[in-house]
C-alpha cells in the first residue's frame, strides 16, 4: 500500500470518527439548544434570541468572547495571551491549510491555473502557514510549560494529552516541510518557509538519512493530524464550536451569570 492509499483510508476513518463525535457533542447540543430556546420563547419567559429558534448568539457576544476573549483576560493576561496565540494560530493555519489543499492540491486537477500551484498564491499561503504555525507552536509550548509548572492547579482545567497532541502535530508539520526542503533545495518558495527553511539547513548538517526519513515523517504527521481532528469533538476543544453557540442560551440574565461562573470557566 502506498502512502496515499494509507492517507485516504486514514482520512475516511478519521473523518467518520470526527462526524460521530460531532453528532454526539455538536449536532445533539444544537438540537437541545434550539429546542430549549423554542420552549422558553413559547412560554414568553426569559429573553431568547431575536432569531426565533436559531441557536446563534448576538454578534456583540461573539466579538467580545470568541474574538477578543474578554472572559479569559479577566482571569489573567498570561492565560489570555496563551489562549490567543493558540486560538488565532490554530484558526489561521487551519483556514490556510484548507485553502492550500483545495486550490494547491485538488482543484488544479479540474481547472487550469498556476496562481496557487506555482504562482504568488502559493507563496502567500506558504508564508501564512509558516507564520500561523509558529504562533501556534509558541502558544502551545507556553501552555505545556504552564501546565507542567502549575500541575496541581491546572490539572482540571487543561487537558495535557490534547495540548501535547496538537504540539506534536505542529512540530511534525515543520519537520515534514523541512524534510521536503532537504529533498528539494531549489524550491523557488524556500524563502517563504522562514521556519522550516532554516530548520532544513540545520538538519542537513546532521548526518542522518533525511531522504529516507521524509516519507515516515510525512506519514507520522498525517497520522497525528488525523488523530487530533478525530479526537477534537470528544475533547474540550469542542468548545471552539459549542461554546459560542451555547451562549445563545446563557448570554442573558441570571442563568447566563450562573452558567459562566459554574461551568464555562472550567472549559477554558
Amino acid at each position, binding site marked *: 500500500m*502506498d502512502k*496515499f492509499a494509507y492517507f*485516504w*483510508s*486514514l482520512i475516511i476513518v478519521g473523518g467518520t470518527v470526527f*462526524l460521530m463525535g460531532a453528532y*454526539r457533542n455538536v449536532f445533539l447540543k444544537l*438540537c437541545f439548544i434550539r429546542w*430549549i430556546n423554542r420552549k*422558553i420563547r413559547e412560554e414568553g419567559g426569559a429573553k431568547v434570541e431575536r432569531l426565533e429558534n436559531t441557536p446563534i448568539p448576538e454578534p456583540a457576544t461573539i466579538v467580545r468572547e470568541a474574538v477578543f476573549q474578554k472572559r479569559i483576560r479577566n482571569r489573567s493576561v498570561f492565560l489570555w495571551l496563551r489562549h490567543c496565540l493558540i486560538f488565532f494560530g490554530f484558526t489561521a493555519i487551519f483556514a490556510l491549510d484548507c485553502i492550500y489543499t483545495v486550490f494547491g492540491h485538488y482543484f488544479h486537477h479540474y481547472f487550469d491555473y498556476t496562481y496557487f500551484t506555482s504562482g504568488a498564491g502559493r507563496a502567500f499561503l506558504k508564508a501564512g502557514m509558516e507564520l500561523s504555525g509558529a504562533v501556534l507552536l509558541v502558544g502551545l509550548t507556553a501552555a505545556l510549560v504552564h501546565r507542567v509548572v502549575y500541575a496541581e492547579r491546572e490539572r482540571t482545567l487543561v487537558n495535557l494529552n490534547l495540548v501535547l497532541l496538537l504540539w506534536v502535530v505542529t512540530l511534525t508539520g515543520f519537520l515534514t516541510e523541512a524534510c521536503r526542503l532537504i529533498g528539494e533545495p531549489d524550491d523557488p518558495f524556500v524563502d517563504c518557509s522562514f521556519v522550516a527553511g532554516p530548520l532544513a539547513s540545520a538538519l542537513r548538517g546532521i548526518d542522518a538519512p533525511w531522504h529516507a526519513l521524509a516519507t515516515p515523517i510525512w506519514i507520522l504527521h498525517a497520522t497525528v493530524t488525523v488523530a487530533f481532528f478525530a479526537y477534537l469533538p470528544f475533547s474540550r476543544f469542542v468548545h471552539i464550536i459549542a461554546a459560542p453557540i451555547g451562549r445563545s442560551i446563557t448570554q442573558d440574565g441570571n442563568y447566563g451569570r450562573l452558567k459562566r461562573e459554574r461551568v464555562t470557566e472550567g472549559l477554558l
Partner: protein
Amino acid sequence: MPITNKMKIAYASVVLLIQVYLVYAATLYVTPWSAGFLCVLVAAAASAAGALYYIFVVARDNEIVAYNPQTFLEERRRIG
C-alpha cells in the same frame, strides 16, 4: 424530544455523502481498483457501517453529559 428520526436520517445521509465524496477524491491519488484503492474502499465501508450503528443504535439522544433536556429546560425556567 429535541432529536427526531428525520434529523438522524439527515445527519447520517450527510456522513455517507461525505464518505462517497472522499472515496471519489481518493481516485485522484490512488489508482482505481488497485490494492491500495481496495483498502480505501474497505475503510469507507467499515466507517459507514460504524457511523450508522453509532447514530441509530449507540448514541443516547436523550442525554448530553448527564444533562437531560427536560432538566436543562426546567433549570432555565427556574433561574430565568
